[in-house]
């Protein structure tokens, strides 16, 4: 009901929409961005950019899940900001470690610019996630979508940290095989 009300505000171009999404989803989007950015100023700016991006995109878009829609915008903007502002320091960043883990699944050093390929990869990832057991998928997303630490994930699901690492390792192997099988790389 609240989402519908919020979307109506967006569609009516009522500026209360921005204030309301900030109040309703600010905390959630902050947790998503927190995993990527460490700087409070960057986080705040990223969140403001998120509301603005949503304001510009709705309408014409009408997301079916506004909370996740905003989380995805925030995550992408945080990634952009991370790359732009921390390029020289990223070797020390925790996100860099997370991304390095995932780099295992792709050929090293190559660059792909094609938008078509990017969309194809998104489609494959979506399908791949559906093939995973629920807990594998959950752990994978907590790590690579929310950039949570292994300890956080272990605490969330009451698993041992070693088991979380094992699950992640298995899932990365699966993903690598899957992408090769689908002839993506």
């Amino acid at each position, binding site marked *: 009901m609240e989402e519908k009300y919020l979307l109506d505000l967006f569609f009516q171009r009522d500026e209360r929409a921005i204030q309301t999404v900030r109040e309703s989803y600010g905390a959630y989007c902050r947790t998503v961005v927190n995993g990527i950015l460490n700087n409070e100023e960057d986080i705040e700016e990223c969140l403001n950019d998120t509301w603005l991006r949503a304001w510009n995109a709705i309408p014409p878009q009408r997301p079916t899940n506004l909370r996740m829609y905003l989380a*995805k915008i925030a995550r992408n903007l945080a990634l952009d900001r991370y790359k732009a502002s921390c390029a020289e320091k990223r070797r020390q960043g925790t996100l860099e470690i997370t991304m390095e883990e995932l780099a295992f699944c*792709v050929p090293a050093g190559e660059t792909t610019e094609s938008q078509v390929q990017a969309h194809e990869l*998104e489609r494959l*990832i979506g399908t791949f996630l559906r093939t995973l*057991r629920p*807990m594998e998928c959950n752990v994978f997303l907590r790590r690579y979508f929310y950039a949570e630490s292994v300890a956080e994930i272990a605490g969330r699901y*009451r698993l041992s940290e070693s088991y979380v690492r094992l699950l992640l390792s298995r899932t990365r192997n699966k993903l690598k095989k899957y992408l090769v099988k689908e002839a993506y790389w």
Partner: protein
Amino acid sequence: MTNRDMLFRAVGTADDELLERSELQVSTWSKKRWIHSVVAAVLMATVLAGAWRLYLFSALEDDPGYTFPDSKPMTVPEPDEWAMMMPAFFMIDGRKYVVQDAYYSESALSEERAAQLKVQFHEIYPVSDDFFGEYLGEVTDVYADWPKKKDQLVGHMEGTVSGALYTVKGVDPKLFVALKSEDLDYFIVYVSVAGLTFRTGADLLENYFHLTENCRQIRCSVFTPGHERLYSVELSGDRFVHAMNFIRMLNELKIRQYVNGTTEYEEMRYEKRNRYILSCQLKNGLVVELVIYPEGYVYWYHCHGVYMELPEEVFTPLWSMLDEVMAE
């Protein structure tokens, strides 16, 4: 954009539904439930003697916190052709029995004797000689000459085993009977479950075995695709508690229904991966074996078709614990 970055961004387009599911946390006990559990433990302590029991059972959950949809009762069918080809399958008065387990007296417990009996030593459940006598009920029949009973006996037992057929004390002989060897140092229990109806795990594990109350020891072993058992490790301390919590939870699980005239178990029969077996020895000496599949299924060994599907949040920690136990 590098491939690595593109992959990381692609994960960012994951389905909303999957992302929302990942947010669910495994529930933890509330203070109220802790209090209930402690009270239950104290009450239990007045009944159960022994400090170690007090420690172990005080940690058991009364309510694991999972809910399961209602299910239709399932009636166990007659043993299929595969079961009837098993060694130690036979019929008495029209009822079909399959072997449940073999029990050996302490005096029979030696590696040499195990080899002679063609059983693996670590599979043997020793029963004290006194207990051995107390366990069996009355003699219902004596099979001294199997060939004359051809119409009742099927399988390779025919002509190879003889002995007295006993009831098992406290158990309906239609469910269990025991064949005592002529050497008198072991007996084999047979079970007949065809026609019994189950709806939840409790209908089997509690109604027939009172498993949560009577389980005194749990051992874990690995079952290979070649139906060979490797190792056997007793679960102790927290691991015993974990396994008991798991068994308690099983009571609430629904028995899975048949699919297209067959069971999912049958489809998994030729599973290529290892499985785990939890062997729960009861106070009366019976052993209830629960086979756990890597796909998250559990079934009571020797009762084909009676199996349960575990919730992911239960299966994963259990499997992880068993992995750890067997890796040690």
